[in-house]
């Protein structure tokens, strides 16, 4: 499972289309809507985490959105690990349920598999050294 946090800007003519339905049905993606602002006769804005099995599937979904006239901006693509600040304490690994953060049990170093990250943000609060952040923009 991989994910992207994306921002969608709707043109008025696209607002009526059930795009999240198509993302689920046609592209087998899982949209998780975090914020929605849709005003009639104006632009709509939607922030969502889009999850899929592979990078290709995700890209296909994003391409479909663009084709429908939706402007797509990728807000977060991965969790950033600041090696300088990290002490390899491992505190973040207890709250990461996706396996993105684990400890190497040979050398006890933190291992980040960022493609497994689903942006739950639990680890941001768990790190005593503020060594983890979300890459945005």
């Amino acid at each position: 499972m991989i994910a992207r946090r994306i921002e969608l800007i709707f043109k008025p003519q696209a607002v009526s289309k059930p795009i999240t339905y198509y993302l689920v049905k046609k592209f087998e993606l899982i949209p998780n809507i975090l914020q929605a602002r849709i005003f009639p006769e104006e632009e709509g804005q939607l922030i969502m985490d889009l999850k899929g099995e592979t990078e290709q599937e995700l890209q296909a979904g994003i391409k479909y959105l663009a084709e429908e006239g939706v402007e797509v901006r990728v807000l977060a693509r991965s969790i950033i690990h600041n090696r300088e600040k990290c002490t390899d304490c491992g505190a973040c690994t207890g709250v990461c349920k996706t396996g993105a953060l684990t400890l190497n049990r040979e050398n006890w170093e933190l291992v980040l598999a960022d493609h497994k990250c689903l942006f739950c943000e639990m680890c941001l609060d768990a790190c005593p050294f503020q060594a983890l952040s979300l890459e945005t923009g």
Partner: protein
Amino acid sequence: MSRVKSYQEINQRIKKGKAVVLTAEEMIDFVAENGVSTASEEVDVVTTATFGAMCSSGAFFNFGHADPPIRMEKVWLNDVPAYAGMAAVDAYLGATEESVDRGEEYGGAHVIEDLLQGKTVHLRAIAKGTDCYPRQEVETDLTLADLNQAYLFNPRNCYQNYSVAVNSSEQTIYTYMGPLAANFGNASYSSAGQLSPLLNDPYYRTIGIGTRVFLGGANGYIAWEGTQHNPLVERNEAGIPLGGAGTLAVIGDLKEMDPEYISAASIKNYGVTIYIGIGIPIPILDQEMARYTAVSDRDIYTDVVDYSVAALKKPTYGRVNYQQLRSGKIVLTGGREVTTAPLSSYKRARQIAAELKERISQGHFLLEKPVQGISNSRTFRPLKKRKED
């Protein structure tokens, strides 16, 4: 019966560069292969270490006198209050003290870290003014080099074992053991287990007042038993305590320490704390010390405690050992599986044990025999209640 070694003999061998020094991890394998008797003959020193959150820590400073002089009564360092109820330009900065304006984001630990990293720290002090100390306020910028004295004096470090924290409630709670997710979402543990100093000398035979230690990269000393020292907790057949037991008060020169081994931390919704690296060498005086230092994660047990219960005595959910904790999963009473994560860095603890081994092997670090032992019988009491309560 094998030979008994003295501190003097061991130090002679260290000075000649001939001492056999192993880390506490290496000692486990050595004893498993060669037996306790051979190990007690051949091994001189075993190095132990830990790198974890040690909230009860802080530093004494002497700032030097201003002209005209001030007897500082209230002191702030980068807006973090330090205790100055001593004469005249001395202060004690507690690691967990939070900044007046930035709260849990920045505190005493961060000031100590900034000083260690060579950064400038802003000092502000006020006083009422006296005939001999007329000045009423002073402000200046200081670095570690500008201070007359700067030494860590930590009242309680190096906990001998510690319980595991879980949360049985319906919501995430934020504790000094980190965030604990609802419904036993995760379990947090903090001891370095088989590498931890006091678990390798469970009855404090060689770790006592005056013992020279590795403290934050410098030579430090054990000053006293730590606060809340509690040697009478339940122990297993091997003498290993089954929960938080002995503690140490340590002292050492901040000016000689290395930022690699001291890190300021902010624990969400709890506050500021400091991670400190401590290494303690254990002389293998006889077979008993060889046996103690061969202790492994398998032999060290601790209780799983429910931190969602807001009482001093909290319910427990079973007893686990550190091999299980380190595997990443434990099973609680009743069969529930819970993910585990450490709070202290085993990697840094290993690094410190290796560094101390190196210093001793090179003849740069000699052992000091304690001038007095720490208590094996002190009782640890809760806060006394008022009669009417």
